[in-house]
């Protein structure tokens, strides 16, 4: 499957007069893994939250062409009273997945994510941080997203799970989904990215495909050259 899953044009947002995102524009293609890089406070999470509708945009346009969207926040939080299985049931019910297929789908993804299915009978906030992250992956993947957005995909995951997550992103992209990940871990992204978008001071300063020619030997050099500022003595 090819085509565009998301188009963002002229997106801007300010908080109390401080511009967090300014005139950001990019598009995400299906079948590709896009890395969204930027320093702390560059506006990555704000951009993602505007795309998802969690924050209002001051101006700009978000054109969502994907049918279903998956989202894993950096630090997932869940209702304190709900068990994992109940939340998954709500998710699948909302997406019209028939009852008989729900259990099978959950079992398949639990295995892929190395998440103990026994945990699902417990309330989600009682899980370890890593398992909460995996549960968030599970919840999002169950809906078969064709746009998968992950904020800091590797936070709280152990090295084995990081490897599994990398493999997962590639599989999703091969399956035709657009994968959009915001992260600081350039070394991990380097192994799997197809496209890269770099944001600095709220503005998108670089959009590049892996196959595009350039003088940079690796993603880290590309990132550093994009965010380096003569005003900060770097």
């Amino acid at each position, binding site marked *: 499957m090819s085509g565009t899953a998301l188009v963002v044009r002229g997106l801007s947002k300010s908080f109390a007069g401080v511009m967090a995102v300014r005139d950001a524009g990019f598009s995400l293609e299906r079948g590709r893994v896009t890395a969204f890089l930027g320093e702390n406070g560059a506006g990555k999470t704000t951009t993602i939250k505007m795309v998802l*509708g*969690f*924050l209002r945009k001051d101006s700009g346009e978000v054109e969502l062409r994907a049918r279903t969207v998956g989202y894993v*926040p950096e630090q997932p939080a869940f209702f304190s009273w709900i068990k994992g299985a109940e939340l998954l049931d709500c*998710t699948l019910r*909302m997406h*019209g997945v028939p009852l008989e297929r729900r259990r099978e789908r959950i079992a398949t993804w639990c295995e892929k994510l190395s998440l103990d299915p026994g945990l699902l009978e417990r309330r989600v906030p009682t899980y370890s941080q890593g398992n909460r992250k995996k549960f968030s992956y599970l919840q999002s993947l169950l809906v078969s997203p064709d746009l998968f957005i992950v904020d800091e995909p590797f936070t709280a995951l152990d090295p084995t799970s990081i490897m599994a997550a990398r493999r997962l992103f590639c599989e999703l992209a091969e399956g035709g989904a657009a994968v959009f990940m915001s992260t600081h871990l350039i070394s991990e992204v380097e192994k799997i990215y197809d496209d890269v978008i770099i944001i600095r001071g709220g503005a998108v300063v670089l959009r590049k495909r892996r196959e595009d020619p350039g003088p940079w030997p690796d993603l880290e050099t590309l990132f550093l050259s994009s965010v380096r500022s003569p005003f900060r003595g770097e």
Partner: protein
Amino acid sequence: MPDRPRRQVTFRLTWLRLRRSPAAWAAAAAFPAFILYLWIKGSYGTALRSFLFLLPHAFLILSQDMAGDEIREGRLENVLFLGNGFKDHLFGKNAVLVLTGAVYGLGLFIPLWVIGLVTHRSGWGDLFGLVVALLAGVYYVMLGGLLSHYLKGGSNVLALIVVQAAAFMGLLFSAAQKGGFLDLLSAGHFPGFVAKLEFLAFAAVLPNVVMAGRLRHYVLWIVGLTALALFVQWIKVRRLELKRS
């Protein structure tokens, strides 16, 4: 996303929360026990009147921590609530809580009322009392929901109860004064603008007061306040952004 599955999810999530809330269970059990106690120790009439007077508070208990913590702790930043889903969810909770309170209230009222009807101690007029009590309950849900956007945890309910206690104390102090507010309340007549205003403010804090026979026409004031609270809540939710604290 179609509206129906979204509504179902809101219903299920809200219902699960209520089902697992020890405070809700304790209140749900204590209320009929108290009414039964009044019936045994006092009379059927006292029990029925007290039931109708206190029923709105059952709605108030349901409305504790309706929105604030979910927003502040980032629980709504979930794949279930993408787009404007979190807004629909927050607004839809009002309906679930009102429905739950109404079913609970009716479940207790019907047997109580039927027994009274059979033994000629209640009448059809009590049905109007029930409607007024339910309307006051709906107001509590709207007000509790609105306050929970500003106050943490269950303090939306606590704050209202503290204000009610202060208003009640003021009422008691006015008992010493001839022609004071308590006298006006008993007479159901408020001469002058200030007295009327005082009553309207009192009813806004303790809407149960309109259950008193001479004050029942003030239920329209409660309906108006409900509409206002709902409107302000709607504006608040419409402008809402999910920012973690």
